[in-house]
């Protein structure tokens, strides 16, 4: 999470070529407890790259297959190459493919099936990927 944006809503970017998924995720997010959440939506990877370059995105939910791209192995690295260092989660209606296990190698933080997304899963993702894992004496000014 961008530490310089504390107090502002958590910004999630959904990248999915099916606009219906935007509606579904927005409805789910309305039920999530905790920090205020703002949902941005784009339908292709080029727009997603432009969004993360513009800054302010805390978490990206990236659909596995974005036409005309192949799968996350082709799209997630584009977000990293654009300098995005926030968490990327791959969402898909089918995450049973064996290649999904390689997700850490492609700069992806987690994967989740679309049928598994509900308010408790979103809460867990937010809590897990925005918490500070290192104690204060591990702050970078101690370097």
């Amino acid at each position, binding site marked *: 999470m961008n530490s310089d944006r504390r107090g502002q809503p958590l910004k999630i970017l959904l990248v999915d070529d099916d606009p219906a998924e935007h509606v579904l995720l927005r409805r789910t997010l309305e039920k999530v407890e905790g920090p205020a959440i703002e949902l941005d939506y784009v339908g292709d990877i080029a727009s997603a790259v432009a969004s993360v370059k513009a800054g302010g995105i805390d978490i990206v939910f990236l659909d596995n297959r974005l036409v005309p791209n192949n799968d996350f192995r082709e799209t997630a690295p584009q977000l990293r190459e654009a300098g995005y260092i926030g968490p990327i989660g791959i969402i898909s209606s089918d995450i049973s493919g064996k290649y999904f*296990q390689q997700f850490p190698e492609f700069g992806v933080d*987690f994967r989740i099936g679309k049928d*598994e997304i509900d308010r408790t899963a979103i809460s867990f993702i937010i809590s*897990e990927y925005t918490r*500070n*894992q*290192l104690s204060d004496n*591990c702050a970078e000014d*101690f*370097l």
Partner: protein
Amino acid sequence: MPEAAYHLGPELVRAVNRMDFFRLFKALAVNQQCRYFVLSEVSGEEEGINLQHPHALHNLPESWLKGTNGKSLGADPVIAEARRSTAPFPMDLARHPSVLAHASGAKTAIVVPLHTLAAKRYCLIMFGEASLPKHEAMAVLALDAALIFQRYYAVILSLDSVSGLNEREIQIVRWTSEGKTSAEIAIILGLSEHTVNSYIAAILRKLHVVNRAQMVASALRSGLIA
């Protein structure tokens, strides 16, 4: 929701991070008509369980935890019984109201004690609306929970006791020794800052050090980096 036994299929061996195990334990709970679950280490201290611990997994809403009004979770009848038991058991919440699960309207708690090779006690607690499971169902559920937990131990928990650093961890120590921040290392390696910090947290535990400077010094002394 995922189909029955999803948590025991290929996804079990493909689980690689805490999010994957959250999904597996949640699927197990949902299969028991339990909407909520908690996996936590059981301590001998008054609190009983610590949901803030880095190894705890749960999907309880934040408001429930606030709803305990700062009361020790150890006083909750479900937690108290979990601390005393070494065998799985169901609990009728109408007879033993749980402060923790009160807001859920759950009728039943199912508790499965678990343990690691390093003799640490954990427990899986599920809250749901189904009636109390029968003996045979409890046995199958306990086995399923143990299988997922065994994998959780192998992939996540055992890292605390593994010595030596893997290739990625050595890369991160090397870049830290060059004065790079987590964000800079994330850009260099094409990872998230969260992933880099996860690696650093694991390295600190493995090297028994407390900060980045000591991490680099220890790695240099032991020849992990030149």
